[in-house]
């Protein structure tokens, strides 16, 4: 009891100690109310300034450095929005247009180079040469000659490339094939350029198309050639005619000039009779008129000839510009003709000019003479005005004075002339020098002109020679190219034949394989089907047999089941009898011994091991003596209770009598509930004997003997010893009851199991 009191005190103390002093902590918080308000504002302001400065600096740097901007946008989530707001969208396309322009600028320059230079080129440039001309001539309206030249340029490139490789068919094939493929690729790049320039001899086209194209090209060439030759001939003819005319005119002029000069000389020097003189003068005038006319004609003819020659030159240039190869000899011939004509014309012109200069001298001389004569005539007439011009015919009309005056005048004149002569002789040298100088200058000029013209003529000849040589070389190269192409074609056909053979074999093998595999498939399919049929038939037979068996078994099992049902009924009846014997217990005396009933059960359970085991599990005591009923146990418990209360404090160590006394005192003084519902889980507090007793009595009152026994089992010490008997009896009763209930459950189950539903 002391312990109980101590326990109660401890419990109450524990309950009271649960409320910890929470209220102390709340006072500690409100101390630092508003001491550093100014400092906080300063710190906040400084922080804001730093953050703003950081952001502004980042924006400025992002504006200057795009990589930084990209990095910031990538890493910081909403920075791209902010930066876009501040700086505008990021400029990313700056670099690209420049690059494309550069790329575009390159091919035209390449193309120009290709057009200008000649054959020896490295192999890489074949592609670009093929590509760029194709590109360029695609949009250009059809200029067949130009395209042909490009095609031939291409072909020459290819030939030059191939000629670098040793001319053995197999390697040549591969090289050619490789080049062909390259060209195919480049040709495939521009599939749409169906310009006439696509007469690339390397693209695989059907023969008819190629032939058609070649025929077309030939036709075109011929047309061009015909037109050019026609035009050339025409212009040649016209220019030849004009030149001849000019030459004729010049010759006529020359003749006229020489005639005139001759006549003039004659007229100057020949001393003939006056009638003849006048006739001579008339002839001279006529000759002069002739000469001027002839000179004019010659000049006009020369102009015309020059025009014609210029037109011829232009036509030649144009035809050279068209660049048809077959036209070249014509062009060359025309040029030569032109050159010859020009040369002839120049010669004739020089002749005419020399004649003219001679004539000038003679005319000057004649003029001088005429002038002197006229002067003399004027003097004579001034002296003797009556004398008429024709003084030579005068005889006897003149007086002595006149004669003397005349003679004096003549003498004076002679003196004068002598003086002049002397002067002239003196100044001869100077005049000669001056004349020589003049002549030299003129000679130089003439020389220069002659030199220039001859230089031009020579240049022209050299150029023509060069052209002739070029055309010859070209022909040679063309012939060579043709042979190489022929060789290449032969090699190609060989290669194609080989490839075809190999392909044929491969395809044959493939076809055979496919055939054999298909045959195999079909066979296996057929076999599978037949097997399936067999299997199905077997399956059906098996199912039928199984069903038959099943039916037989069912019938057998029915019989067996009926037998079992009968046995189960018997068992059930015996179990019922056994459970009935339990009820025969009186208030204080046990039941009748269960031996007989158990025996019946044992007999009726037959071969069920479970039932046998159960039947033999009945405790001996119950079989021999019988069991007490629950009511008697309850009554006994109630009487036991007071005893247990009295020895509640005595434990296993069997304390002294004093303990006994204390225990008795406790029993007297302690009051517990008569009955108390036991909790689901027993805690250590519930192991108090008094509590246990009240739980047990509650259970007993509610008919739960098992739980009551369990609870009573928790008693320890002397109390336990006291209730030992009761516990044993309770156990016995419980055991028997359990076995019987199991048996009855089993019997019920068996009975239910064997019951056949209608």
């Amino acid at each position, binding site marked *: 009891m002391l312990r109980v009191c101590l326990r109660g005190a401890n419990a109450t103390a524990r309950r009271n100690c649960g409320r910890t002093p929470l209220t102390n902590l709340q006072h500690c918080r409100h101390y630092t109310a508003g001491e550093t308000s100014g400092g906080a504002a300063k710190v906040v302001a400084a922080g804001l300034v730093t953050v703003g400065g950081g952001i502004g600096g980042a924006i400025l740097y992002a504006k200057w450095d795009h990589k930084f901007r990209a990095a910031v946008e990538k890493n910081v989530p909403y920075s791209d929005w902010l930066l876009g707001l501040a700086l505008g969208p990021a400029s990313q396309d700056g670099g690209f247009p420049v690059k494309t322009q550069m790329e575009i600028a390159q091919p035209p320059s390449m193309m120009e180079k290709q057009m200008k230079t000649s054959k020896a080129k490295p192999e890489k440039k074949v592609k670009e040469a093929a590509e760029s001309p194709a590109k360029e001539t695609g949009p250009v309206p059809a200029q067949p000659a130009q395209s042909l030249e490009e095609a031939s340029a291409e072909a020459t490139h290819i030939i030059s490339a191939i000629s670098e490789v040793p001319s053995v068919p197999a390697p040549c094939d591969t090289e050619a094939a490789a080049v062909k493929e390259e060209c195919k690729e480049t040709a495939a790049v521009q599939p749409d350029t169906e310009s006439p320039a696509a007469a690339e001899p390397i693209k695989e086209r059907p023969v008819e198309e190629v032939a058609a194209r070649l025929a077309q090209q030939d036709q075109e060439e011929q047309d061009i050639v015909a037109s050019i030759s026609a035009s050339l001939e025409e212009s040649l003819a016209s220019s030849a005619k004009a030149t001849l005319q000019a030459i004729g005119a010049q010759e006529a002029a020359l003749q006229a000039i020489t005639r005139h000069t001759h006549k003039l000389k004659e007229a100057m020097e020949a001393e003939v009779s006056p009638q003849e003189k006048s006739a001579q003068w008339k002839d001279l005038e006529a000759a002069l008129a002739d000469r001027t006319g002839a000179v004019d004609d010659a000049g006009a003819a020369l102009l015309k000839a020059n025009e014609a020659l210029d037109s011829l030159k232009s036509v030649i240039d144009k035809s050279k510009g068209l660049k048809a190869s077959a036209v070249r000899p014509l062009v060359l011939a025309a040029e030569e003709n032109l050159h010859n004509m020009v040369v002839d014309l120049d010669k004739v012109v020089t002749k005419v000019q020399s004649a003219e200069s001679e004539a000038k001298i003679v005319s000057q001389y004649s003029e001088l003479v005429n002038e002197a004569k006229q002067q003399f005539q004027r003097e004579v007439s001034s002296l003797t005005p009556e004398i008429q011009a024709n003084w030579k015919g005068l005889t006897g009309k003149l007086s002595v004075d006149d004669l003397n005056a005349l003679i004096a005048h003549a003498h004076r004149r002679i003196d004068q002339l002598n003086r002049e002569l002397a002067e002239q002789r003196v100044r001869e040298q100077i005049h000669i020098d001056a004349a020589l100088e003049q002549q030299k200058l003129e000679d130089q000029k003439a020389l220069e002109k002659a030199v220039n013209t001859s230089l031009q003529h020579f240049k022209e000849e050299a150029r023509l020679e060069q052209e002739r040589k070029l055309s010859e070389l070209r022909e040679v190269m063309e012939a060579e190219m043709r042979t190489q192409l022929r060789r290449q074609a032969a090699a190609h056909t060989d290669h194609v034949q080989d490839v075809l053979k190999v392909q044929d074999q491969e395809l044959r093998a493939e076809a055979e394989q496919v055939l054999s595999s298909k045959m195999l498939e079909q066979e296996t399919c057929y076999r599978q089907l037949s097997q399936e049929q067999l299997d199905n038939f077997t399956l059906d037979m098996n199912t039928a047999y199984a069903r038959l068996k099943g039916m037989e078994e069912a019938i057998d099992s029915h019989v067996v089941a009926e037998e079992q049902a009968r046995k189960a009924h018997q068992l059930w009846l015996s179990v019922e009898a056994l459970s009935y014997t339990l009820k025969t217990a009186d208030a204080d005396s046990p039941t009748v011994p269960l031996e007989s009933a158990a025996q019946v059960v044992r007999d009726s359970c037959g071969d069920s091991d479970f039932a046998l085991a159960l039947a033999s599990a009945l405790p001996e005591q119950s079989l021999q003596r019988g069991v007490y009923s629950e009511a008697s146990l309850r009554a006994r418990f109630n*009487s*036991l209770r007071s*005893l247990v209360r009295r*020895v509640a404090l*005595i434990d296993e*160590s*069997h*304390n*002294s*009598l004093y303990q*006994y006394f204390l225990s008795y005192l406790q029993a007297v003084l302690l009051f517990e509930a008569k009955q108390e519902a036991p909790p689901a889980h027993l805690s250590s507090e519930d192991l108090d004997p008094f509590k246990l007793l009240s739980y047990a009595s509650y259970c007993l009152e509610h008919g739960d003997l098992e739980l009551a026994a369990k609870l009573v089992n928790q008693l320890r010490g*002397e109390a336990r*010893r*006291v*209730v*030992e*008997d*009761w516990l044993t009896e309770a156990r016995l009763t419980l055991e028997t009851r359990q076995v019987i209930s199991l048996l009855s459950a089993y019997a019920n189950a068996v009975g239910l199991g064997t019951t056949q539903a209608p």
Partner: protein
Amino acid sequence: MADEYGRKWDRCLADTALKTVTGLGVGIVFSVLLFKRRTWPVSLGSGFGLGMGYANCQHDFRSPYLIHGHMVKVNQIQYTVLCRPA
């Protein structure tokens, strides 16, 4: 075993009473004979008796599994109930 408890107590009390009285008697005797009718041997004797009975009782309770035998005289047919070890 509840009955055993009762029986024990009966035995115990009877024994204690007997011993006490015996002790008392012996005490009286000694007091009269040897100690000039003083009280102390009486109380001593009764105390002895009480103590012995108490000790016996305690011992009996502490050893619950000890079987107390009864002497059965042949002449007297006494049906005694044997104490069953619990």
